């Protein structure tokens, strides 16, 4: 088996299918043509830039360039977590927590993977570290988003129950334990179901990529399994971190529920 590079012509052929979707949008008057076009162009530009930057980073092999790329991931993570939130915390703490929880967990897991499991030299070798970091942080990010969303909306909805417990003398952890537990469960669901159905419905992306690039399916599988374990572990850490910080932020040292620390819901974003 060999790796078959794609030419621009090949991509053009694949884009015909996208044109088909655009045609359907026209035929059914979905009004999505513009969105389809913009999304497709955005994807090409984003991936193109990332590929070129990665190429530069790999060739330079510099630690500084690797760190800079990782920093960019951190910023994108923070932005992404916050923008997906319906009820978010006021002020910079929202971005801080949204970025730090998935990124820190992802960083620990991927450094562990690159140095201890893969055994690459040096431990920050960008060729291994950056793609693994991206995959893990991307999944942890989805988990953290769900945790924060579940906890903030449940705490707002169940204010009477939480304050009822506080009024009876419960500590903030006791009063919010149900909300926290539900949040953590929700945050861990996607990775658990991903593990449960892996390979049944579709081959995971990384395994598909390795197989297309000519790797032996069994080798590709072992890498995929390692990544899944890493993602599950990192998501667990990130989800617990974000959940505990969210509970701490929603309450204060006098064990009061502080929903006033959540930014008001934008009326146009409530139901879409």
């Amino acid at each position: 088996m060999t790796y078959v590079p794609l030419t621009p012509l090949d991509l053009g052929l694949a884009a015909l299918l996208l044109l088909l979707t655009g045609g359907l949008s026209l035929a059914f008057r979905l009004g999505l043509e513009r969105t389809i076009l913009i999304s497709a162009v955005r994807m090409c530009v984003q991936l193109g830039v990332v590929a070129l930057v990665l190429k530069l980073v790999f060739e330079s092999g510099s630690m500084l360039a690797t760190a800079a790329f990782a920093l960019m991931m951190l910023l994108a993570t923070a932005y992404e977590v916050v923008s997906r939130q319906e009820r978010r915390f006021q002020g910079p703490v929202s971005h801080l927590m949204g970025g730090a929880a998935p990124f820190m967990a992802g960083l620990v897991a991927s450094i562990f993977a690159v140095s201890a499991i893969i055994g690459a030299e040096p431990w920050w070798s960008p060729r291994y570290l950056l793609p693994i970091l991206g995959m893990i942080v991307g999944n942890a990010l989805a988990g953290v988003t769900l945790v924060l969303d579940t906890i903030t909306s449940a705490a707002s909805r169940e204010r009477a129950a939480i304050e009822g417990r506080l009024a009876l003398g419960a500590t903030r952890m006791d009063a919010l334990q149900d909300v926290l537990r539900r949040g953590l469960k929700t945050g861990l669901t996607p990775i658990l179901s991903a593990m449960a159905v892996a390979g049944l419905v579709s081959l995971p992306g990384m395994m598909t990529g390795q197989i297309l690039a000519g790797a032996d399916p069994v080798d590709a599988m072992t890498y995929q399994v390692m990544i899944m374990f890493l993602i599950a572990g990192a998501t667990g850490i990130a989800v617990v971190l974000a959940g505990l910080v969210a509970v701490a932020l929603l309450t204060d040292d006098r064990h009061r529920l502080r929903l006033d620390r959540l930014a008001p819901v934008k009326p146009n974003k409530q139901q879409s």
Partner: protein
Amino acid sequence: MLRVETLRIAPLPSLTFEVAGGECLAVEGVSGSGKTRLLRAIADLDPVAGLIFLDGAERGEVPAPHWRGLVRYVAAEPGWWSDTPRATFAPDRVDTGKLERQLANVGLTPLHLDRDIALLSTGERSRLAFVRALQGEPNVLLLDEPTASLDPASTALVEEQIRFQLFAGRTVLLATHDAGLAQRLAHTRLMLPKPRETAIAAEAGTR
């Protein structure tokens, strides 16, 4: 003895008053005048500037959960966090015989503890929350509209139980729209002004 000093609940002028053990203060005023906010502030459920003393100890000197064990707020719309009321009663700390008596006093039976919350009437829920608040023997009861959802018979039962709490030496603060209830129970009545009115009229009246 509950003493409130220079409590700032915007837009009300700062409040200073005291209520002795065995006495009842009725907090009256139209909706939105701050009755609930006042009771919540005393239970330390909202950050509010000012000093609140219970038998000489300021609320900030006492850990918040302990403070709320002594100064018990009962919301107008009680919160429930399990399918049946029983689990919200902290079973290990409850004396069942006493609990049964307390339930019977407000016209309920232990069976109500195991009904589905959603199947209980508003009045039953309100009375259950009242009994729940008595557990742990708090020194101060902050009752927010305790009889608003009750029929006359249940109102009389709850009123009698509030009186019983006063005889037992507890301090009761009562936020209510029901002038009759306030008149029958309260030793002192605090009338909060309409929002945007500046003057505050504290009418001291005895039964």
